[in-house]
């Protein structure tokens, strides 16, 4: 039981005084945000409505010390749907700012910078949707250099920096290059000859799928069930995590086509990840065209929050396009 003296009424004022927190008490707990939220799919304990409600009640310590407040990635899928027009991610940010001042930190793991390799080129700092990477000047191996440094309280672990780093200095354990490549090639999938090489009946598709772009568990199960010799699915933390080198590598091996599925414009879980993924594929398409190779061999597709069972269609379309556009080597 919560006793009334545990409810800190000043917490509401504290949050509302923080920039972004102004709308805290306009929430009446309709649950639209909670039902929208994609984080919940991976972590059912996360509930934006409940966090706002607890903050409104004044459960100060419980809110500030919870791991959940760090999980909102400000994808703002809930914001346009909120009937009270509460910018929930901004309220979260306000709560986090208080938590940061109180010395709380989000749980790891975070991307790690290999300072031996890092040139401080600032590609990652520009790539990061959250401005969570700073460049700091420090002594590394007796030499004063400028290297990247991750600000934990801002990092959402999307892996965009890992993909962006041109020298492989950035790494995030669960979504490292090595991890992805091993998933791509597991079971020798990549080594089997493709349709264009005359080794398969049907084009073989490798799909990089942003984990947030498929919005329901039911659908994920179905999609997973589609995996076969013809179709390999590698899920990404974000379509912005996709590495052009991996796409090209797959194409030189047994993949006839590489499909990258990201969130719909405006729905990206990491704000600009979709654009990064889309841009990379767009440039690859352009280069394939320049080379005289059918650009249908790579494709970026959006899957919106309202799309359901879109993925099989995307794969089907890609297979058809490849068959139509590329002459098969006898």
């Amino acid at each position, binding site marked *: 039981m919560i006793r009334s003296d545990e409810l800190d009424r000043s917490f509401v004022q504290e949050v509302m005084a923080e920039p972004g927190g102004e709308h805290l008490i306009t929430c009446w707990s309709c649950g639209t945000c909670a039902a929208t939220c994609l984080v919940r799919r991976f972590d059912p304990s996360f509930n934006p409505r409940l966090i706002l409600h607890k903050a409104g009640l004044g459960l100060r310590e419980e809110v500030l010390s919870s791991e959940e407040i760090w999980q909102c990635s400000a994808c703002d899928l809930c914001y346009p749907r909120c009937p009270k027009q509460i910018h929930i991610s901004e309220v979260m940010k306000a709560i986090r700012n208080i938590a940061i001042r109180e010395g709380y930190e989000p749980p790891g793991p975070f991307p790690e910078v290999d300072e031996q390799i890092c040139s401080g080129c600032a590609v990652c700092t*520009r790539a990061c949707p959250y401005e969570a990477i700073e460049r700091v000047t420090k002594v590394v191996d007796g030499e004063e250099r400028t290297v990247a440094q991750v600000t934990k309280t801002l990092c959402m672990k999307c892996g*965009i920096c890992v993909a962006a780093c041109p*020298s492989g200095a950035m790494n995030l354990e669960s979504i490292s290059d090595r991890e992805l490549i091993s998933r791509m090639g597991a079971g020798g999938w990549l080594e089997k000859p493709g349709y264009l090489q005359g080794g398969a009946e049907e084009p073989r598709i490798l799909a990089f799928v942003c984990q947030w772009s498929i919005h329901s568990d039911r659908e994920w199960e179905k999609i997973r069930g589609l995996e076969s010799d013809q179709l390999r699915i590698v899920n990404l933390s974000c379509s912005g995590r996709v590495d052009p080198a991996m796409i090209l590598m797959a194409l030189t091996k047994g993949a006839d086509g590489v499909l990258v599925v990201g969130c719909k414009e405006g729905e990206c879980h990491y704000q600009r990840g979709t654009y990064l993924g889309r841009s990379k594929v767009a440039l690859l398409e*352009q280069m394939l065209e320049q080379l005289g190779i059918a650009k249908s061999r790579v494709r970026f597709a959006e899957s919106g929050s309202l799309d359901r069972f879109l993925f099989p269609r995307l794969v089907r379309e890609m297979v058809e396009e490849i068959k139509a556009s590329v002459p098969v080597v006898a």
Partner: protein
Amino acid sequence: MGKLNLAVYWASSCGGCDIAIVELGEHLLELAQVADIVFWPAATDFKYDDVEAMEDGAIDVTLFNGSIRTEEDEHIARLLRRKSKVLVAFGSCSMEGCIPSLSNIKGIDYALNRAMFENPSTVNPEKVLPQRRFGMPEGELILPGLCNQVRTLAQVVPVDYKVPGCPPHYEQVWKVMTAIIENKLPSRGGLLGVDSRTVCDQCPRKREGKIRVERFFRPHEIVPDPDRCLLEQGILCAGPATHAGCGALCIEANMPCRGCYGPPDGVVDQGAALLGAIVASFEGKSDAEIRQVLSTIVDPLGTFYRFSFADSFLQQLKANPEEAGRICASQADGSEEEVEQ
């Protein structure tokens, strides 16, 4: 210890790499004290026969520059491989294909057509094409055939070391020479004549770090601020994805890095790495905006793979079995003189 036997060869190249060695200047005298130049077509008068006459492994180190464009290039590459204890792919052409390998994008026919007929500075009303064999009063002239593809040295013969750069910076060349002279070459397979990390590590310009660009400019379109990061000013600079070693020379001249020092350590495909880095620097909040930014990158393929196309995944993709058979088929007379594979 006797004097070292040193060979320098140029295959299809511009000659810049030879100049880079000449640029050693007085160091050449130091070099001459410890090494004999046994073969260097650009500077000395040795014939192929002289090399053929050597025992296998007679040359201690061969610095091989230039890409493999002709049958002759390939022939000499194999010859020098046999004769050399250490074969170094010297310079961007032999290491990763460099500018010549961009011709692989459109293929040899296109390249020939372009060079012999379409080039605005070419006057060739009779449409003369160089002939493989040509009868002269003095006898039949035979030209080496063109290969379908430009290849790197390593795509033809095993290579012990690679020295990047177009051309390699002379200070780096001297470092390589010193290592050879002092017998301090590292274990085989690595890069020589480079510094750690990327060009950005050596670039003195100020990087704000959060600025993203809304469009790209070609170098002639703006005069960039000499103190600020070129990429942040919208100039497509390859520095982030290029191995350090040049000392950021171009950047000092207020020009962007073009990537001649090849990919950083551990990076397989320089163009892909550069593409990722460039995309990360875009500002775009919608598909339309992104298309807008993308449209300002003229010729992405040539830009991202200016020096490394022959050594890229894309080259592998482009080469269908027919073309990629590493075949140097003769062009003009249709003779089927195949070079051993």
